[in-house]
């Protein structure tokens, strides 16, 4: 089987998501859905005094690709300055996943990024 999509690390992040949970009083938060498949991600960012990501958590459900993507993204965000977080784009997400996502599943892979962008856009 041509199964490069479901590599060990993807399955691991899906089964044991990093930074799962919620943050009360987050500095930035947003929820995004994939209407076609029902995947959902809610992302919470807490910034410190120098606009660095002090803590990040997510709450979500969905396919292995969307959930692994957000789990990996949260690992990447921790401790980063806001400016760097704002510059994260599709290429970075694909780099984190390290797999050939393919056009049919791109929406799943990018739900994490979409949620991050919404969270950054909505100041709380």
């Amino acid at each position, binding site marked *: *089987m*041509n*199964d490069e*999509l*479901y590599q060990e690390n993807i*399955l691991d992040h899906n089964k044991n998501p990093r930074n799962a949970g919620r943050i009360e009083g987050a500095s930035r938060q947003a929820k995004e859905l994939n209407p*076609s*498949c*029902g*995947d959902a991600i809610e992302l919470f960012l807490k910034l410190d005094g120098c606009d660095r990501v002090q803590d990040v958590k997510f709450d979500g*459900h*969905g*396919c*292995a*690709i969307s959930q692994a993507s957000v789990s990996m993204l949260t690992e990447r965000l921790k401790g980063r300055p806001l400016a760097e977080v704002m510059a994260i784009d599709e290429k970075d997400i694909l780099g984190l996943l390290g797999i050939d996502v393919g056009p*049919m*599943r791109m929406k*799943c892979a990018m739900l994490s990024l979409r949620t991050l962008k919404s969270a950054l856009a909505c100041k709380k």
Partner: protein
Amino acid sequence: MKKLPADILKDFPSLHAMGMRAYLDSAASSLTPTPVLEAMDGYYKECRSNVHRGMYKTAGEATARYEAARGVVAGFLNASSPEEVVFTSGTTASLNLLAASLGRELKPGDEVVLTEMEHHADVVPWQEAAKRHGFTLKFIPLTEGFTLDMDAARALIGPKTRIVSVAHASNALGTVNPVKELASLAHAVGAKLIVDAAQSVPHMKVDVRTLDCDFLAFSAHKMLGPTGVGVLWGRKGLLEAMEPTQYGGDMIREVRPEASTWNDAPWKFEAGTPNVAGVIGLGAAVGYLQAIGMERIEAHDRALAAYAIGKLSEIPGLEIVGPKAGERIGAISFTVEGAHPHDLATLLDREGVAVRGGHHCAMPLMARLGLSGTTRASFYLYNDESDADALIDAILKAKTVLKL
């Protein structure tokens, strides 16, 4: 007599396109056989012109072919006349027309009864009409066995009910609903019964007089026809009394600067240049199905569904979401513990097995069942047991990849 599917496989050129092993998504859209493609081609090659207008020969021929399809569809449904057949762009358009037109006659206090298993196409148009006209929506709940709770239906359908609109067969569960009984419940309180037959007309003999419904909607693309065309069947008197919702050419009798009058039904509902090739293709698809026989197609469907459900049920962690036996079509929804429907559908695709994963345009149903979605395999006349075997084989491989 043609053997199913062996003798018809040659008619479906796209079946083996792109290296597919098993096409199991006919509930979403069926494949189209060569005779249907040729009928549509014939229009473009032989009599390409508008209908109901030109005074020249090809326009007459195009109109004749277009209107002949109306007769074919009327016969297929056992309608009392071709004038009961309105061509639309599909089930969604047919149901929107009904909700918009019939909705205008409803007022606050009136009730429209739907079911918990409706496709979004039979929910959202009613929600929008309800917003505008102030009527209330009620939903017939399900039993544990994924059928309609008919006791609840009897309690819900009452003096305030003006319309009952139900799926004949559920695209998400495979359940076939007791439409005839719902028709008598609706008629007993003076309400009308609308049937969303998108999933039944392709798979079984549907006779509008036996069902005793008032309106029936379906799509050509799920029954070997082209995309973008469908039918609204309605009782003649009801269509005559109903207001159109789209205006323009062809649907009028007389247009004066200040006001206009309407053409007769069904043409008053067909504003503008219709999907001529599509309608001709639908007529050819009906002819193709009739030549095989709907009873045989239904029997083939049932046998395959029973075979597949038997095999699927043996897979650990797999749950069938829908009736395991009884009144059902060959659209089989299931969940596999630990596997999201999209991951499963992707992995099955890699084995050449095409299925659908997701909420199947039935989000209220999925919420009611506490599921984010299911994986659905659906069969049609060109499938056989080897396709079901390919499905089982691919699910087992997917479970290995996902370490389940």
